[in-house]
C-alpha cells in the first residue's frame, strides 16, 4: 500500500500511523576542517603514497629535505598520476613526462622543455604534523585554517614511559562519515556494539569541539573486548573530544583509576573518500606501568587496539546494513543526536553561514539508572547461561 507521509515523519497504513524514515541525501561537499591522513612515520617510508580523499586523489611524498608534502595527485600537464611517480630531490616527478612538482605546488622543472609555462602550479594542501600524525586542511571555500581550530598536541606523545602509536585503518563503503560522528552521543550503542557498560554519560559541545565524558565498565560477559586486559573488570573513565569534524582525542583512565593523568590515548579519526565512503583510522599510545619493558608496553597498546578493533568492525557491520536517517526516533535515554548533528552541520556550510545554534555551548547528561539496571540483568542472564553477546 502506498502511504501518505505527513509533516512529522509519520504515515498512515490502513488504520495505523507508522513512523517513516527520512533518509535525506548525502551532502555534495566535504567537511571544512583538519583531517588526519595517518602517521608521519608511515608516509616517510617508501615512495610516494596515494590517498583517495575528498572525492579526489592526493599524493603524499617526502622530499630529500625530509619535508612531507601533500599535492593533488593528478599532474596538471596531461593528468598523469604523481603517486605512481618518483621523488627526485625535493620534488615529485610525474611518471608520464617527468614534470617535477615541489612541495609548494609549483612546477620546478620540465627536463625536456626550454621553460616552465606560466601558471604551472598544482594544489598543495596545507599540512600539519602533530604528535606523529599528518593532517591536511580541507576547505571548500579555499580559505587558510584559522588559528582557533588548530589540532591540539598530545604532551605525552614521545615522552618517557609512553609507547609509540599502534595504528589501524578500516575502509567503510556505503556510509557517510556522519555515522561514526553520531557515536559521540550514542550511549546505548556502547553496550550493544562495543561491549562497554556506561554508568555515567555526558556530552558537551561548544565551538568546533564536541565532547563525551563516559564512565564505563567492561561487560562481564564480553571481557575479551576490555580496554584494559591487565585489569579486567575495572572501570574506565573516558574524556573524548572531536576537534573539528573528523578527529577525536580520547583520553582514558583504565584499571579503576579516575584521577591524575590518563594512561591511554585513543585517537579515532576519519577522512571522507567520497560522500558515501570514508577511511576510519584509530591509534593507541599507552603509558607503560612501572617495571614493564618496552616490548611489553607495545604489547599492551596492541591488545587495547585489538579490543577497539572488534568494536569498530561491529560498528561497520551496523553501518553497512542500516539506512541513513535524518529523523531518528529517540527516547529520553538516548543522547542528544539532533543537537550533535546541528553542531556537525557547521562544517558543511560556508563559514559565514555558521549560526549560533551550531556553535553555542550545549550540555546534556543522560540518566543511566534505568539502562544500567536493565543491562546488569541482561549480563547476569548471559553469564548464568554461558552465553556470549559477541557475534561470531
Amino acid at each position, binding site marked *: 500500500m502506498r502511504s501518505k507521509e505527513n509533516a512529522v515523519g509519520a504515515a498512515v497504513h490502513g488504520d495505523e500511523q507508522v513512523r517513516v524514515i527520512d533518509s*535525506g541525501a548525502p551532502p555534495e561537499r566535504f567537511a571544512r576542517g583538519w583531517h588526519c591522513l595517518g602517521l608521519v612515520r608511515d608516509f616517510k617510508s617508501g615512495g610516494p603514497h596515494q590517498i583517495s580523499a575528498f572525492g579526489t586523489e592526493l599524493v603524499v611524498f617526502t622530499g630529500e629535505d625530509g619535508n612531507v608534502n601533500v599535492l593533488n595527485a593528478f599532474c596538471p600537464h596531461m593528468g598523469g598520476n604523481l603517486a605512481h611517480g618518483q621523488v627526485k630531490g625535493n620534488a615529485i616527478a610525474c611518471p608520464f613526462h617527468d614534470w617535477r612538482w615541489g612541495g609548494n605546488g609549483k612546477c620546478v622543472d620540465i627536463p625536456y622543455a626550454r621553460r616552465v609555462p606560466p601558471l604551472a602550479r598544482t594544489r598543495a594542501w596545507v599540512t600539519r604534523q602533530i604528535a606523529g600524525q599528518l593532517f591536511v586542511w580541507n576547505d571548500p571555500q579555499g580559505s587558510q585554517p584559522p588559528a582557533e581550530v588548530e589540532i591540539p598536541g598530545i604532551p605525552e606523545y614521545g615522552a618517557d614511559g609512553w609507547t609509540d602509536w599502534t595504528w589501524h585503518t578500516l575502509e567503510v563503503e556505503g556510509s557517510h562519515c556522519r555515522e561514526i560522528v553520531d557515536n559521540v552521543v550514542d550511549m546505548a550503542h556502547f553496550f550493544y556494539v562495543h561491549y562497554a557498560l556506561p554508568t555515567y554519560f555526558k556530552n558537551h559541545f561548544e565551538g568546533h569541539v564536541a565532547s563525551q*565524558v563516559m564512565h564505563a565498565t567492561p561487560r562481564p560477559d564480553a571481557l575479551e573486548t576490555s580496554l584494559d586486559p591487565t585489569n579486567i573488570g575495572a572501570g574506565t573513565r573516558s574524556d573524548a573530544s572531536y576537534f573539528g569534524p573528523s578527529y577525536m582525542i580520547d583520553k582514558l583512565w583504565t584499571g579503576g583509576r579516575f584521577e591524575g593523568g590518563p594512561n591511554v590515548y585513543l585517537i579515532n579519526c576519519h577522512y571522507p573518500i567520497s560522500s558515501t565512503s570514508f577511511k576510519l583510522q584509530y591509534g593507541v599510545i599507552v603509558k607503560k606501568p612501572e617495571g614493564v619493558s618496552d616490548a611489553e608496553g607495545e604489547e599492551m597498546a596492541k591488545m587495547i587496539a585489538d579490543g577497539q578493533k572488534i568494536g569498530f568492525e561491529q560498528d561497520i557491520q551496523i553501518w553497512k546494513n542500516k539506512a541513513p536517517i535524518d529523523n531518528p526516533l529517540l527516547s529520553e535515554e538516548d543522547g542528544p543526536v539532533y543537537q550533535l548533528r546541528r553542531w556537525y*552541520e557547521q562544517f558543511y556550510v560556508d563559514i559565514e553561514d555558521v549560526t549560533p545554534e551550531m556553535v*553555542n*555551548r*550545549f*550540555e546534556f547528561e*543522560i540518566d543511566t539508572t534505568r539502562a544500567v539496571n536493565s543491562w546488569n540483568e541482561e549480563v547476569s542472564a548471559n553469564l548464568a547461561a554461558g552465553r556470549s553477546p559477541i557475534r561470531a
Partner: protein
Amino acid sequence: MKPLNCDLCGQQVLVEKFSAVHTSIQWTNKTDNCPTIRAAGLGLGDPGRSCAALQNRIERAVLDSEILESTIELPSHADLPRLH
C-alpha cells in the same frame, strides 16, 4: 526548554530535565560572557569548563519546581539538521 538566568552574571540559558539525573543546558550566548568559565581559562572540550553558580541556579530551580520534568520533543521536517 525553560529559560533561567544565572545569579552571578545574569546570562540566560535554556534548561530541560527529563529526570532528576538528566539535565540539558543550551547556552544562548558565548561562554566568554561567563566570568567563571573565562577566569578558569580551560580550553574547549575540557570537562572542567563549567560554572558552579549556574549549576546552583539550576538545582534551586528544580527544588522550587520552576523546572518540571518533561519528555523529549523531536524536531520535524523543516527543523531537521541536514548536510545537504
